[in-house]
């Protein structure tokens, strides 16, 4: 029978320990953040930003996300558990915004403000959305490209897809900036490789084959950018200026090796920080800005070790 007693003992000890936890947590304002992921370095950086804001503003923050970005139902379960805790506000990065709407409505009816982060929710329930301004970030990529190729010549874009918000905005931001500011630069083609390294490599090779005088390529997300680097290397066209997006070990290495001129990085720490800040303001009934630009940076060999940049890069 000792096992049963041991088991009971362990459970009650855990319960006591847990009650200690929640007792300590009750005096502070509580904000629940439900993200798209948890283990990935990008999300850990978002969490770091959220924790920083929590410490500064004296609130309690929890951060949770499913094991991978396919687990839509698990994210919904996390959202309903968060609702049960009666938080002052919820930060939410929807994996599938349609699936979450019933719960978001429930939160709205309970008077719990929702702040969307990383990507928007197709609904007017969120009080604010804290995300990267992808249009502006891609425009910065265009500026850097123009600078590096001397303001004229042919360039191409390899992007991840035509359907996601980030895919659309990054291509559009780059194209518009080139059209408006650099009349001597011609975008010969925009191709989509689904963010797949290998597919993006093949696309890059065929673009280089078709345009021997190409001066630069913009890879619009991590997978596309790695593909572009591979393609350029396999075709032995290292004279082509490559600009990437986001970070990751491979992309950082390509920049160190000089295969990639530089890349745009989002500011995941800023996303977490601004989400918590907006959530606290919304919970207090203060007005919040509807669209919060969490910022972005251009990094290259020269500044990638600066503390400000290094903090937002991940492997």
């Amino acid at each position, binding site marked *: *029978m000792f096992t049963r007693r041991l088991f009971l003992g362990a459970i009650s000890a855990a319960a006591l320990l847990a009650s200690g936890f929640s007792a300590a947590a009750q005096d502070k304002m509580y904000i629940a953040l439900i993200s798209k992921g948890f283990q990935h370095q990008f999300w850990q950086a978002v969490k770091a930003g959220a924790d920083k804001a929590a410490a500064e503003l004296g609130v309690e923050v929890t*951060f949770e996300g499913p094991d991978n970005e396919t687990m*839509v139902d698990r994210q919904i*379960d996390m959202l309903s558990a968060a609702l049960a*805790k009666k938080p002052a506000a919820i930060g939410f990065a929807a994996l*599938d915004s349609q*699936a979450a709407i019933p719960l978001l409505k429930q939160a709205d009816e309970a008077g719990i403000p929702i702040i969307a982060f990383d990507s928007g929710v197709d609904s007017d329930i969120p009080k604010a959305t804290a995300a990267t301004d992808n249009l502006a970030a891609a425009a910065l990529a265009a500026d850097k490209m123009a600078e590096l190729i001397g303001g004229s010549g042919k360039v191409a874009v390899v992007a991840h897809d035509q359907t996601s918000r980030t895919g659309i905005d990054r291509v559009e931001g780059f194209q518009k900036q080139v059209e408006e500011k650099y009349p001597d630069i011609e975008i010969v083609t925009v191709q989509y490789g689904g963010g797949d390294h290998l597919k993006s490599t093949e696309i890059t090779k065929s673009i280089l084959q078709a345009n021997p005088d190409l001066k630069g390529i913009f890879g619009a997300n991590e997978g596309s950018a790695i593909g572009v680097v591979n393609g350029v290397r396999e075709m032995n066209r290292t004279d082509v200026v490559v600009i990437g997006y986001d970070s990751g070990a491979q992309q950082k290495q390509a920049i160190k090796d000089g295969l990639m001129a530089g890349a745009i990085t989002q500011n995941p720490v800023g996303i977490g920080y601004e989400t918590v800040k907006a959530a606290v303001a919304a919970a207090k009934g203060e007005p919040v800005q509807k669209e919060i630009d969490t910022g972005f940076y251009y990094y290259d060999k020269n500044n990638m070790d600066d503390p400000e940049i290094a903090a937002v890069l991940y492997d």
Partner: protein
Amino acid sequence: MSTAEAAPRPGLAARLFATGAHQRLLAFASLIILLVGFSLASPNFMQMSNIIAILQATSVNGVLAVAATLVIITGGIDLSVGTLMTFCAVIAGVVLTYWGMPLPLGILAAIAAGALCGLTSGTFIAKMKIPPFIATLGMMLMLKGLSLVISGTRPIYFNDTPGFTEIASGSLIGAAIPALPIPNGVLILFLVAIGASYILGRTVLGRYTFALGSNEEAVRLSGVNVDAWKMAVYALAGGICGIAGLLIASRLNSAQPALGLGYELEAIAAVVIGGTSLAGGRGTILGTLIGALIMSVLTNGLRILSVTQEWQTVVTGAIIILAVYIDMMRRRRTV
């Protein structure tokens, strides 16, 4: 503690150890302890809305675990339950959204697809003699791939079939008793569990399910068509996965083709916590149901207490080890 020590004290406890009821009682007791513990620890835990959230979170894993229980009792294993669930959800999406067929046909198609895939696994195992682990591992991957192919790697939404979300999220009980808005998904879980319990306890199929797990050779030698019965069990389990597919698709109002990997392990964990032996021949649906509830109460409760996610995973793993250890202890006593 050894058998020799336990033998001289044949009290109520010893009688419980001697019968299969003990493990279920213990699992049930742990469930109650968890519920009480979490209620004491947080005032937000024991509330109608949260209890419903827990039940709803159990519904999909519970149905998958029932399917896994049937297969595990035969001494087999089914690793494909998670991706089969997704495959059936995608089939429902194709039939309802792409082809615009009426709701009952979509439901039928999903369950039939599940049964057919189960039958296929059963054929690999019974006729081609591929070990269940390998056969269902292969099925798991094939079904994951097929779900992505058929859906074009995009989620399929059910916006054109208004009644579809009612399958899991509507509440027939709530319509009758407004104070008890238990979602239909939970009702379906209980119906599936009752049905499976009936099959296991009262039908020939059930008797052969246990017999296959205890001593397949003896069953074969007594002239029973072992292959056919085995295939029937896998087909039944597949059909139940089809029901799980409908539940998850209804809850998300979409068939998410990339979902499903990893769900098989959670289903198997629920089965094991519920006292079903992975060696076959022994197990109950009630135990599995309690096992699935323990898992979701634990996850929900730890979340409510704001335990960090890293530690939630550690605790869940420890509970599985503990549950199986207690099961082993019991078996050592009863030998």
